[in-house]
């Protein structure tokens, strides 16, 4: 694909063929532009009702339909909603917890902590959860999200108040979620899953902005805990179900890519998908809430006086109706974020009240064993990227290549030497998620910070990692 440099870190794919808008890529010169991902940006630019640009951010790589790190907003009247713009793992998301411990408190106890968390939180696949729920209760959970868990005694009100959407997308309708999706998800609440999902105990290695870090409750050497997981089988099935329903209704002939199947936002199917997607998003919020509760329970055995609070919880795979400025006018649009994070600046009503005067916390996990970052959302992001930024490092190398060249045992040893204790159900999983198969997260963060679509606040380094 042809690209043209607009300014530092901003590139354009000029409009051509069936593209309705140009593509916009926010990436540094150092990063390679993956041809297939660029093609996907151009494909998204062909979807009806797309506004301004089809966007890719610095951690962009090939996805299904949309690239990962893909963002697009659609006109509510003329536009579409696409499961391919949200992803199969609906509301794959990250929650950050802060503690009253510091790095020195846990030295010598890392192994004990990692063993305890691994025992308590089911990770990996096919292991199921000890959390039992009836179908009737699950329907309530799908409509109430994290609040459902807190009301049942699994956490505190502050937990969901410090979560995107306050841990519940109100548009959720459990009756739009299929029996198959329920069957896949009902036994998985409180489980991490595998792949890139993880649980990490970290410490604050560096503070870039003292004032905002203080607002977020973060200080140097403080221990934090990060949870990365999504809506498990339930969300995956919601995506598959609606892809099929949309294919049946609208056919696949006029699509640039079968994974870009979509429905008009105003159509019954479009509305149904959004209600089911919101229910799956709530499943993910509730899932992390239960995991948070179990972490608290378990860590108390090691540190009886520990206090664990939620800093924030952000969605990475989601569609949202939000107000943005289009051609000088405020308008509600449907923003798709696929492997991208909301990055709202100060003042927006969607940002949790305690952060509203500085902007929302943005949580960007690194790959296993590397740094994660906390950033703050900005007004600039609202101008350039529909209030969005990156979601992670982004993969550069395949799993099959990793398995051929990297051994899980060695990854574990290598991380141990760096002072990081890792526990996983499978060595193969460790090899497939080794740090070297991801882009350099530091470079990704540098780009978004320079662009100003989110600003660096703190850098976190891992001490204990639980992988699926």
């Amino acid at each position, binding site marked *: 694909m042809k690209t043209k440099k607009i300014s530092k870190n901003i590139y354009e794919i000029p409009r051509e063929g069936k593209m309705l808008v140009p593509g916009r890529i926010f990436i540094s010169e150092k990063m390679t532009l*993956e041809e297939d991902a660029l093609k996907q940006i151009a494909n998204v630019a062909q979807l009806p009702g797309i506004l301004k640009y089809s966007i890719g951010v610095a951690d962009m*790589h*090939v*996805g*299904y*339909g949309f690239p*990962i790190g893909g963002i697009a907003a659609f006109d509510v009247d003329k536009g579409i909603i696409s499961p391919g713009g949200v*992803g*199969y*793992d609906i509301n794959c998301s990250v929650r950050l917890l802060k503690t009253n411990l510091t790095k020195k408190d846990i030295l010598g106890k890392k192994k004990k902590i990692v063993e305890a968390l691994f025992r308590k939180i089911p990770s*990996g*696949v*096919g*292991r*199921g959860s000890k959390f039992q729920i009836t179908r009737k209760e699950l329907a309530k959970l799908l409509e109430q999200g994290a609040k459902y868990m807190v009301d049942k005694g699994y956490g505190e009100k502050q937990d969901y108040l410090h979560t995107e959407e306050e841990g519940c997308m109100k548009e959720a309708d459990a009756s739009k979620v299929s029996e*198959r999706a329920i*069957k*896949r*998800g*009902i*036994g*998985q609440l409180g489980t991490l*899953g*595998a*792949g890139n*999902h993880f649980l990490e105990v970290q410490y604050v290695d560096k503070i870039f902005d003292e004032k905002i870090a203080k607002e977020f409750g973060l200080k140097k050497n403080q221990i934090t805990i990060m949870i990365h997981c999504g809506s*498990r*089988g339930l969300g*995956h*099935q919601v*995506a*598959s179900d609606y*892809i*099929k329903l949309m*294919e*049946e209704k609208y056919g696949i002939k006029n699509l640039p*890519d*079968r*994974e870009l199947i979509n429905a008009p936002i105003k159509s019954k199917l479009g509305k149904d998908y959004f209600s089911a997607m919101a229910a799956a998003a709530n499943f993910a919020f509730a899932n992390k809430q239960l995991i948070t509760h179990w972490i608290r329970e378990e860590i108390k055995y090691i540190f009886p006086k520990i206090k664990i609070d939620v800093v924030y919880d952000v969605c990475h795979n989601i569609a949202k109706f939000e107000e943005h400025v289009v051609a000088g006018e405020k308008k509600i649009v449907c923003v798709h974020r696929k492997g991208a994070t909301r990055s709202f600046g100060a003042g927006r009503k969607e940002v949790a009240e305690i952060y509203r005067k500085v902007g929302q916390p943005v949580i960007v996990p690194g790959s296993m064993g590397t740094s994660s970052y906390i950033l703050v959302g900005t007004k600039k992001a609202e101008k350039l990227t529909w209030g969005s930024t990156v979601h992670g490092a982004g*993969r*550069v*190398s*395949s*799993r*099959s*290549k990793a398995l051929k060249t990297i051994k899980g045992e060695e990854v574990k040893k290598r991380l141990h030497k760096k002072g990081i204790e890792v526990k996983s*159900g*499978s*060595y*193969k*999983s460790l090899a*497939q998620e080794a740090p070297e198969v991801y882009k350099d997260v530091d470079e990704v963060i540098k780009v978004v910070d320079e662009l100003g679509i989110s600003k660096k606040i703190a850098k976190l380094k891992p001490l204990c990692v639980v992988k*699926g």
Partner: protein
Amino acid sequence: MKFEFLEHTADIKFQAFGKSLEEVFANSALAMFNSMFDGKVKRKKKERFSFQLEGGGLEGALYSFLEEFLVLFDSKGFFLGEIKKLKIEEKSGAYFIECEFVGDKAKNYKISLDVKAITYSEMFVKQEKGKWISQVVLDV
């Protein structure tokens, strides 16, 4: 060769082979489970499913076929060992699929991957020089 894995940056991509449409479908299912665990799986439990599908083409049929196994995996913790019987019938664009197979409880194995979904990305099912070949990318 029943199947082989190909390079894919983020996820799992494989091609499966067979002398018949049934065989290429069966080998596609085995490839999917092999991506999660590549050792020997005991044949302890018997399962079956059947479904009918209209208008999705051969790719749509393969997508739904593989999805049946994913649903069984997530809901019952069933891990596929071997396909015993598979019947695929096509009538004016509609597919009817019936399958019987054996496997074991997933928790008895060290599973390294979570297959989230089957995708249509780069998917094909075709006949080449009298042999069937499929290609699937799994979201993991």
